[in-house]
């Protein structure tokens, strides 16, 4: 720890960490370009200011034509660019679903591996408080099922930067989801460029009684609950897969082997959620490791409602996580 006294630890907002990753990659490779609606001004913030340093051709505003600019990246990547797209809001993927799911995700496979498509589609996503049904989606469960898209969902500023670097350097279409509510979270982020490999999860908190796999914005919730339960003598391990495709099942199974209990917290609707996939996989591959039925904590199967009490009812809360953990210990 002595070496750390040389420099103050940098505390950086999540959204700035993403921007540092974007800036580093724009600087590293001149074929990297960012496009999207208002990426110059950047309402959400990830690309703010980059146009000043890299110019309007490399940080380029598009018309509001999601299907077309999502698809243009396929052709552009096939002939040498490394496009990075800011979709702005997770629901907007649905506008572009053919170009994302039928074209970007499938062209490499359909062509028998003739081409690499280095594209990053990033967006702010998930509920942010009365944003209502069309601005609160988390599309990762649907996109996990497409085959051909890597999916990144970081939970800390440190991971946000390192995973952005890896996503842009990757030669495949990568969907990078930034939970809206994490944008203003601060955490330590090194100034230098570093990468975090896609497909390697991280144990955010070690524990011995229950494994809680948490995704994106569910990670800080799970940590909060874990810290509270510590006082009662319940030791919770929090595992953050960081990427959903590829998914670090080895890390999850290793953790379950230690604890014998599993709760998966997913910031998405329950049906066919990432939580469902993880619980099913652990049940198949690690049934004998389990001392209790695994639990899923996810949204109700409704669109995200507007009114605050309705929204609170439909989404996940700390007490949902708390109850699920206790259920595995009962």
């Amino acid at each position, binding site marked *: 720890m002595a070496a750390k006294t040389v420099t103050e630890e940098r505390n950086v907002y999540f959204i700035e960490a993403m921007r540092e990753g974007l800036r580093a990659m724009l600087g590293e490779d001149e*074929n990297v*370009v960012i496009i999207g609606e208002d990426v110059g001004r950047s309402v959400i913030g990830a690309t703010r200011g980059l146009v000043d340093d890299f110019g309007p*051709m490399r940080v380029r505003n*598009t*018309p509001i*034509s999601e*299907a*077309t*600019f*999502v*698809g*243009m*990246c*396929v*052709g*552009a*990547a*096939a*002939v*040498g*660019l490394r*496009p990075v797209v800011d979709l702005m809001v997770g629901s907007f993927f649905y506008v572009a679903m*053919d*170009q994302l799911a*039928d*074209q970007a995700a499938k*062209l*490499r*496979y*359909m*062509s*028998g*591996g*003739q*081409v*690499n*498509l280095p594209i990053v589609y990033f967006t702010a996503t998930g509920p942010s408080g009365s944003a209502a049904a069309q601005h609160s989606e988390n599309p990762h469960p649907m996109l996990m099922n497409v*085959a*051909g898209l*890597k999916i990144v969902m970081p939970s800390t500023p440190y991971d946000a930067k390192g995973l952005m670097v890896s996503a842009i*350097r*990757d*030669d*495949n279409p990568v969907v990078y989801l930034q939970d809206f509510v994490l944008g203003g979270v601060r955490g330590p982020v090194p100034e230098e460029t570093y*990468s975090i*490999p*896609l497909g390697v999860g991280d144990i955010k908190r070690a524990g011995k009684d229950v494994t809680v796999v948490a995704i994106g914005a569910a990670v800080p919730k799970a940590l909060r609950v874990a810290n509270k339960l510590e006082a009662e003598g319940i030791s919770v391990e929090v595992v953050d897969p960081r990427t959903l495709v590829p998914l670090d099942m080895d890390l999850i199974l290793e953790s379950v082997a230690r604890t014998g209990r599993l709760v998966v917290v997913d910031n998405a609707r329950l049906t066919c959620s990432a939580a469902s996939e993880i619980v099913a996989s652990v049940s198949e591959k690690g049934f004998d490791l389990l001392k209790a039925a695994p639990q899923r904590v996810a949204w109700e199967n409704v669109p995200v409602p507007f009114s605050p009490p309705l929204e609170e009812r439909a989404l996940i809360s700390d007490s949902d996580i708390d109850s699920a953990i206790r259920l595995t210990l009962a």
Partner: protein
Amino acid sequence: MTTTSALKDLSQDDAIMMLRNMIRIRRFEEKLSVLFKRGKLPGFVHLYTGEEAIAVGACSALRTDDRITSTHRGHGHLIAKGARVDRMMAELFGRVDGYCRGKGGSMHIVSFELGIIGTNGIVGGGIPIGTGSAWADRHLGRDNVTIVFFGDGASNQGVFFESMNIASVWGLPVIFVCENNGYTEWTPTSELTAGNIVDRAAPMGIPGEAVDGNDVVAMRFAVERAVERARKGEGPTLIEAKSYRWNGHNEGEEAFAGAYRPDEEQAAWRERDPILTFGERLVENEWLSRDEWAAIDSDEQAQIEAAVEFAENSPFPDAEEALDHLFAPSKERA
């Protein structure tokens, strides 16, 4: 609409090559029709018979390193862009020597080395992709152009309007070639489509030109003009090529589609066979004798037979290849 074309502006070699390519497409498609009826082809096929002049005229205005995106009815575009019929046939048979090792089939043949960014099973699906390759080429300072082929049906997809818009405001080197064969699947396009497709260029601020899609020379020069503008950085063009497909929307449609096109209409378009018309012009111009024409035809027929043999002798891919090619291998960088 351009109805006459100047043969004299073509070289004799070019003209004969164009006739040969049209014949190659026709014979390839006719063979597929037979193979389909015999149950030799997995899946289904959409044939290009009758529309050969569009692909051949358009692609004859391109360089090898120019690019195309194509449609579900894409065999003609592939051949016109230089694809080998034996590897195409192997793909259609699902064999390992196919362009995509049997992964794609008729609607997903891709050859990046030939600038073929892909045929496409989604109507209109290739329009943004070709707009994107044009964007990348322009961004990277290259002078390549992209032709986006699509049908009259695709002209009613949102991505068509979106792509013309962005190509116009970004000045992209893309040529939108709409093949209007009169039918949106099984419904007359006139019942489904407002106005003239070519007129959709004007509100986007780009040139639009309607061309006789059965006249290969007219197609060649219309596209050549568009390519010239695109290479000079003067932006996109919309070309509406009016033609007719001789075969159905897909082979085997008679089992469910019924008769939806009048006999007289079909006969009238067959009278305007783009290959016979062009061949006769070459004969009249004394660039080609009838014997030479017949020799080209029999040579192409022989090549198609050889392609079938090549395909039949090519093995199926190892079943485990179903799990390959999803992702490019990751490479660690320092």
